[in-house]
């Protein structure tokens, strides 16, 4: 093996992106936990956490550009670095969505429109997609990546069902509003719930992107990108 240090840098990049993924996953769990426990302190701690993720993303982007500029990678190495670069962006976006979840947790009583357990179950489905997607990336597992992409159909259906249920809830509750203040609160709660569903759907989409980039890296097949 020649260019050993280069190979070590490539392996190191894979590990570092995987490590960023683990941290983002922790943040996503914290966002969901803040909703579950209506935990203000936990929700507010996500802002500072997001700053560390942003710095990490910048650091990893620099590692990618350094490798591109200094090593002039080709073929599988080039695809690995390009994929890592794109996956870092996906992970940084998921971190932003985790912060959003924390903010939604602060809206009082928002999650009475739908059973909170259903929203949390949706959150766990999305975070599982992300976790498995990261594992497929780290273990270079094309089959697993394909399987996760297929899961996105179920994710979308679950989001649609919960959205429908939320709308049913608002129609039911709106008819019982007696004052403009009550109506305003119902509207704010509804928007919060719909936003959380949308954000969880986007977590699933980012997991799909990670899998698509993993497949592209390992097979040069861009069809899922």
């Amino acid at each position: 093996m020649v260019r050993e240090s280069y190979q070590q840098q490539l392996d190191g990049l894979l590990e570092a992106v995987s490590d960023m993924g683990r941290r983002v996953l922790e943040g996503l769990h914290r966002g969901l936990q803040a909703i579950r426990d209506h935990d203000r302190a936990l929700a507010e701690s996500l802002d500072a956490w997001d700053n560390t993720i942003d710095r990490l993303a910048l650091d990893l982007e620099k590692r990618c550009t350094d490798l591109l500029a200094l090593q002039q990678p080709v073929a599988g190495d080039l695809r690995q670095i390009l994929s890592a670069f794109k996956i870092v962006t996906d992970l940084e976006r998921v971190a932003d969505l985790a912060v959003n979840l924390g903010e939604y947790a602060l809206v009082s009583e928002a999650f009475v429109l739908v059973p909170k357990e259903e929203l949390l179950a949706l959150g766990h489905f999305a975070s599982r997609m992300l976790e498995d997607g990261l594992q497929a990336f780290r273990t270079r597992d094309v089959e697993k990546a394909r399987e996760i992409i297929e899961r996105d159909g179920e994710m979308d259906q679950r989001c649609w069902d919960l959205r429908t249920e939320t709308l049913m809830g608002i129609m039911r509750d709106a008819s019982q509003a007696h004052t403009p203040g009550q109506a305003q609160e119902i509207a704010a709660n509804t928007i919060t719930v719909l936003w959380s569903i949308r954000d969880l759907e986007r977590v699933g989409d980012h997991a799909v992107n990670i899998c698509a980039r993993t497949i592209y890296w390992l097979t040069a097949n861009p069809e899922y990108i």
Partner: protein
Amino acid sequence: MISPRTRGMEVETQTHEKNSILQTEALSLWYGRQQALDQISLSIPKNRVTAIIGPSGCGKSTFIRSLNRLNDLIPSVKISGRVLFHGQDIYAKGVDPVEVRRRIGMVFQKPNPFPKSIYENLAFGLRINGYKDDLDGRVEQALRRAALWEEVKDFLHKKGGLDLSGGQQQRLCIARALAVEPEVLLMDEPCSALDPIATAKIEDLIQELKRDYTVVIVTHNMQQAARVSDYTAFFYLGRLIEFAPTEKIFENPTRKETEDYITGKFG
């Protein structure tokens, strides 16, 4: 040098280009008892740049030297197979190797101008190839094609070829090869002795040249192969491992040996 042939190894040897100017058919070559090329079949497309890459000793230079019979000058060389130029075997009886080398020119790794004036570096080859008319015009045209005219036009007879910089000397050698109106230009690591600026000039020149000529270039510089060539052939241990459009070779090679080589995992 060559291990027993692996059975069942399929190698793409054709391109999608309609016009192939040079083809080798099962070309093998030995230096004495040592085999250096093993049944190379390759179709070189016209007006395109084809790069030959591979680790040292893989047969790249031997291969392109076979394309204009330069290996004839080495007594121990034995060749089998065919090299077809416009469909005619250049090793067939009665073919004049001097004429082959006029139509298939060569530029070497180290610039090797004659110790004569710039003008004579070109005129000499023209005269011995029987060109008598308009030598001045032919010299100028060749120097223009090699992107050297503007830099040397004021002292064609006053300065010698060896007075030029390394990059200029190499372009002089390219002009010398072009002066006798070849169809194919073989380049054996033409930039390996040059600095990055001179290298960039030669690379730009190669892009210009392919309008009128077919270029085959041997290079150790993988980025150079990726930049300048339309097709790339990867040689290893005297065999052709993979031949494909350059972007395919550098973005998604079919064979693992190619990927391992171009990504620096061996070599």
